[in-house]
């Protein structure tokens, strides 16, 4: 009754077939294992979770900063509207012609003629709380304003095109051009962009740094876990546990760390935002942004980013650690 040895292909169809199902059944075992390792090396676990949290916080700050600058730029960008005064000599026919001409320039979105009366109304509305201005205006008895053109461009970068267009000599007698207003807006944008590029670069560097440190720390933690389970692992491999089966508990341990870190960061986020908000309001003035609200608006992006980064850290490091030390 000598049994002959099975050959490879007949082997373990049973195991292969049920592998996926069994993996999920045994996820309980892997969780139990991860839970035990967590408590066994309590301080190491705390350090690991802290460092992942720091990486996530730096990434979150980078994201918040991005949202803030995008917001400021949006506000400035939206001011792509400018008033150009007409001279007293401008005749209705000339004005109509000019409006038509400018409307034909592709970068210009809209040109509207604003009558002196409309300008007066707008002025009064702007200074309605300033009695001195209103009084001195009324004391004049006449409307001191000339007509003007309200011009909108598609993008703030296109102001120079507009400037060139209206600087043509044929318009010089009907337009009073004051360049200052154009350039103010444009300079503001340029300086915001360059500052934010620098700060973003810095934030990016910090984030990468923390992510790398996290990978190293998690790698080290998993490696210690493997070391303290080396006998068990040796037996598992000897009796033919599949490579994923040996690995899964360590991968799940890593995932557990990142889940805890994500929770910590999410819990910390709202108090931190509340702490920063007044400073932000002070600093940005009219350009400020409600942090909590804008994070809430982008909550899926935020979650995806946090989970993505955390998973990246733990999966990469536990994958490397298990590959290196389990020789699978």
């Amino acid at each position, binding site marked *: *009754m*000598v*049994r*002959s*040895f*099975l*050959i*490879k292909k007949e*082997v*373990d169809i049973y*195991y292969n077939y*049920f*592998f996926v199902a*069994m*993996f999920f059944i*045994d996820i309980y*075992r892997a969780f139990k294992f991860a839970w035990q390792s967590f408590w066994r090396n309590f301080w190491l676990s705390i350090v690991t979770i802290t460092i992942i949290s720091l990486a996530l916080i730096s990434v979150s700050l980078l994201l918040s900063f991005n949202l803030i600058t995008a917001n400021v730029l949006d506000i400035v960008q939206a001011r792509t509207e400018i008033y150009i005064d007409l001279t007293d000599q401008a005749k209705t026919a000339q004005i109509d012609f000019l409006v038509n001409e400018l409307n034909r320039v592709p970068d210009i979105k809209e040109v509207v003629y604003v009558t002196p009366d409309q300008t007066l109304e707008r002025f009064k509305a702007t200074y309605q709380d300033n009695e001195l201005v209103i009084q001195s205006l009324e004391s004049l008895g006449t409307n001191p304003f000339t007509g003007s053109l309200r011009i909108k461009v598609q993008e703030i970068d296109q102001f120079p095109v507009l400037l060139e267009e209206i600087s043509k000599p044929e318009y010089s007698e009907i337009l009073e051009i004051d360049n200052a207003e154009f350039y103010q807006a444009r300079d503001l944008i340029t300086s915001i962009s360059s500052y934010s590029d620098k700060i973003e670069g810095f934030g990016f560097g910090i984030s990468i740094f923390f992510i790398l440190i996290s990978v190293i720390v998690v790698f080290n933690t998993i490696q210690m876990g493997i070391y303290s389970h080396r*006998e*068990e692992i*040796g*037996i*598992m*491999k*000897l*009796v*033919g*546990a*599949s*490579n994923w*089966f*040996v690995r899964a508990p360590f991968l799940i341990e890593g995932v557990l760390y990142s889940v805890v870190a994500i929770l910590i960061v999410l819990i910390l986020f709202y108090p931190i935002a509340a702490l920063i908000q007044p400073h932000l309001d002070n600093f940005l003035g009219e350009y400020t942004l409600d942090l909590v609200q804008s994070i809430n608006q982008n909550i899926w992006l935020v979650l995806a980013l946090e989970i993505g980064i955390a998973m990246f850290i733990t999966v990469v490091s536990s994958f490397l650690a298990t590959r290196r030390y389990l020789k*699978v």
Partner: protein
Amino acid sequence: MISIKKITKKYGSDYYALKDVSLDIQSGEFVSLVGQSGTGKTTLVKLIIAEEKPTSGRIIIGGWDITKIESYEIPYLRRQIGVVFQDFKLLPKMTVYENVAFALQTCGAKKRKITDTVPQVLKIVGLDNKMDRYPHQLSGGEQQRVVIARSLVHRPKLLIADEPTGNLDSINTKEIIDLLLKINEIGTTVLLVTHNREVVNNLKKRVITIDNGEIVSDQERGRYLL
């Protein structure tokens, strides 16, 4: 069952643990592999279970050429070979039952299969009455029998025992050897690695002697030569 063809295993650039070793073992045989310490016996075992790869030569097991086995295939090989190493101990925090069940759990066996198999293999090694004991509550011989039970859970066609009696006194040694003979009788090929002269001489089975990484004799009903 096992067909080893001109196997050489080098460690480092110039240390030969095995040199040009060839041997065949048929299904159902009981073979003793003897030789002094450091002559390459364990290396040969490790090659058979694909823990090491040969430098040159071929290893075919049950018709399966494992010379260039892929790492994901190794578990399937291991489930067909029961291995007992002197230094692969039991897990101290698990009972006898749990230690044996562990081998099935880690291969993803279903609960039903575990509850069926574990008592069966513990019965084969005569420990079905001590399933709830912890390893420290057992004698050395009993512990080794649990290890053997664990190696049987996949119903291997081949059992390799590398110095299974190394730490045991002569009474426990006899028990273990009798157990291996019993396992051989129910149809399992057994490869016993030992340097216990008395054991080998009493067995009166095939003996392969290895020295300095080379086979120096291979005899049916052999004796311990060195």
